[in-house]
């Protein structure tokens, strides 16, 4: 049996569990909305992104540490790989999006500032989508005009992300009122 070690770890157990929980919730929520609302329904496309981004805002409020977006992106991609087998090519890109998002939050005020968190999450969302569009381009490069439809869908989705930034803040406020999230 290994010796018990009292080591000060950067990531606390509860923080890692919260990240995993929210990654699960985002995955299930996105699936649910896509199934219930119809995958190509623009309203459900926007809603899916509103919900996902709102959850991400709640997550960064709960785990205010450098690396939260990176770790979230990594876990999401890893589990998607295990469950769905794709998109291994996007994994490095998602990590970069996470690092850039986290870096942006650090440089623009830190994790204690609400607007830095919001902008960081917004940037993370934007980069993630840009990377997935880049992957789509490689897939359809013989007929790049096909990408236009993908770009329109991504753009519609991103409006959901932008709305989600605001709704996320409102939701955090409500959770504070409920005593579930504290400052």
């Amino acid at each position: 049996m290994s010796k018990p070690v009292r080591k000060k770890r950067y990531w606390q157990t509860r923080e890692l569990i919260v990240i995993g929980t929210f990654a699960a919730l985002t995955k299930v929520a996105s699936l649910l909305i896509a199934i219930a609302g119809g995958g190509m329904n623009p309203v459900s496309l926007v809603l899916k992104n509103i919900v996902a981004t709102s959850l991400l805002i709640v997550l960064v409020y709960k785990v205010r540490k450098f690396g939260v977006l990176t770790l979230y992106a990594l876990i999401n991609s890893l589990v998607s790989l295990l469950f769905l087998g794709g998109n291994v090519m996007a994994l490095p890109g998602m990590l970069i999006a996470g690092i850039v998002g986290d870096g942006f939050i650090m440089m623009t005020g830190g994790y204690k500032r609400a607007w830095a968190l919001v902008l960081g999450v917004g940037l993370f969302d934007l980069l993630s989508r840009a990377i997935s569009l880049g992957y789509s381009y490689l897939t359809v490069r013989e007929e790049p005009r096909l990408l236009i439809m993908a770009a329109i869908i991504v753009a519609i989705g991103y409006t959901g992300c932008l709305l989600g930034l605001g709704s996320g803040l409102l939701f955090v406020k409500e959770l504070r009122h409920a005593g579930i999230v504290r400052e």
Partner: protein
Amino acid sequence: MPVLSENRKISKDLSIIQRLDVRTKMAICALSSIVALFLEGIYPLSILAVASMVYALLHKRFVVVFVSYGAILVMGLMAAFCVKIMTLVMPEMGKMEIQFFFSPFLRVMILVNVILALALSSRVQSILTALKTLRLPLVIYLPAAVMIRFIPSFIVDIKQISESLKIRGYHINPLTITFHPLLTMRLLFVPIVVRALRSSDELAIAAELKGLGYSEKISYYKTTALSLADYCAGGVATTLLCGACLFEYQDKLF
């Protein structure tokens, strides 16, 4: 995905694909997606598309597979239709030539087939075991394990929440989502988010009390070894992928 919400006893009655280790299927997916991305020739892509279709159909979930194909066909046709409209409205974009659609279509087919084979045949429990076998550092293993642990839980919670809404006269369907999006989202997601936050707290407490963080390294009780079927499947997949690459680049190589 059906297997996520089915919390059945682990069954020993498995098809050929189900007997493959999750790592093997993951590796096939990963390699296929990389190779398919770089191939451009119709013939190598077609060979891989047919091989991947056989691989998916070996799962014997024909309905799901063909419905997925139907969905891809519909999306493909819609995309082609949009391109056609664009070329008519903006002639400077050039003409639409059908042969340029083949390679993208075949790539998507390959990806969908290998993904379906993984998604339809993997049980949550085996994915959790596969995760352990990867021997990842705790900072990655723990949240990933939690995510896998909670996915079936949240699916059950959402079903119960939907039922409670049905009791109150609310129905979650495309119409309600389209015409009452904000109310529908509130009704559905406020309870589940609160539940998620409470569940994560409780699990974190349980993890601490069970000794997570006690030791520098955690041990792994159960890991699965790769079987002959895995090596065979891996060998076949690698041969096909290499063959497709050779086919593609034979002019450059020879």
